[in-house]
C-alpha cells in the first residue's frame, strides 16, 4: 500500500512547478496552462484523499473543479483573443498600458 503522504508530495511538486511556470513565463498561453497544472495538482490530492479516507466527497469536488477549469479556460482564452485583436503579442511584459 502506497502511503497517502506520497500522493500529497506528488501533488505539491506539480503545484510548485505550476507556480514557477505562472510566475516566470512570458507567454500568456503558457501561463494559462500553468494554472491548469495547479488545478490538476489539487485534483490529485483530492482523489487520493477520497481513496484513503473512503469518502466520495473528494471526487465530487474534483467534478466541480473540472467544471470551473472549463469555464475559466473558455473565458480566459476569449480574453486572450480580445487581447490579440488589439495588440499582436503574447508576452505579458509587453502589455504595460495600465502602467501597473
Amino acid at each position, binding site marked *: 500500500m*502506497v502511503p497517502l503522504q506520497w500522493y500529497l508530495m506528488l501533488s505539491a511538486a506539480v503545484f510548485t512547478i505550476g507556480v514557477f511556470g505562472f*510566475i516566470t*513565463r512570458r*507567454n500568456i498561453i503558457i501561463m494559462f*496552462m500553468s494554472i491548469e*497544472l495547479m488545478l490538476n495538482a489539487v485534483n490529485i490530492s483530492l482523489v*487520493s484523499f477520497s481513496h484513503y479516507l473512503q469518502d466520495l466527497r473528494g471526487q465530487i469536488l474534483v467534478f466541480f473543479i473540472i467544471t470551473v477549469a*472549463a469555464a475559466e479556460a473558455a*473565458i480566459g482564452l476569449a480574453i486572450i483573443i480580445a487581447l490579440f485583436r488589439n495588440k499582436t503579442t503574447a508576452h505579458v511584459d509587453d502589455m504595460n498600458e495600465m502602467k501597473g
Partner: protein
Amino acid sequence: MLPKLFFGYFAAVITVLSILVVTRRNPVHSVMWMLLLFFNLASMYLFLDAEFIAAIQVIVYAGAILVLFLFVVLLLNLREELKANRFIGSWPAGLIVAAAIMVSMIFAINSFVPGPMGRYSIDYIQKETYTKVLGEVLYTEYLFPFEIASLILLIAIIGAIVLAKKRMRS
C-alpha cells in the same frame, strides 16, 4: 511492492512532463506534453479507484480544454515566438518563491493527521457500482452546488461569446 512501483512510475512521469510543459519554447510542444500528462493523470486516477474521474479527465481536459488551447496557439506568431526569451528577466526570484512554497507544503504534509473514515469503502462501492454511488452523492447532498455549476457554465458560454466576437461598426 507492485503498487509502489506503479506509483513511482506515475510520479516520475508526471513530474517530468509538468516540467516539460512549463519550460518548452514552442507552445505547441507544451500543449502536446500536457496532453500526455493528462493521460498519465487519468491512469493514476484509475489506480486510485476513480474510474469516472479518469473518464472525465480524458473527455473534458484532454478532449475539450486542450483543443481550445491548441486553437488559441494557432493565433500566435510562432516564428517570432521561437526567437523571443522564454522567461522574464528575474526568473531566479520566481524559482526561489516556488521553492519556498514547496518547502512549506512539505512541512504541512509531514504534520498531516487524517480525519475520520467515511462510509464509502471499496466493498460498498463494488456492491452498489461506482457510478451509481457517485450519482447518489452528487444529486442529493450536492444538488445545490451542481445547479450553481450549471450557472457557471452558462455564464462562461455567454462571456466567451461576448468577449471574443468582433465589435459591430455603428
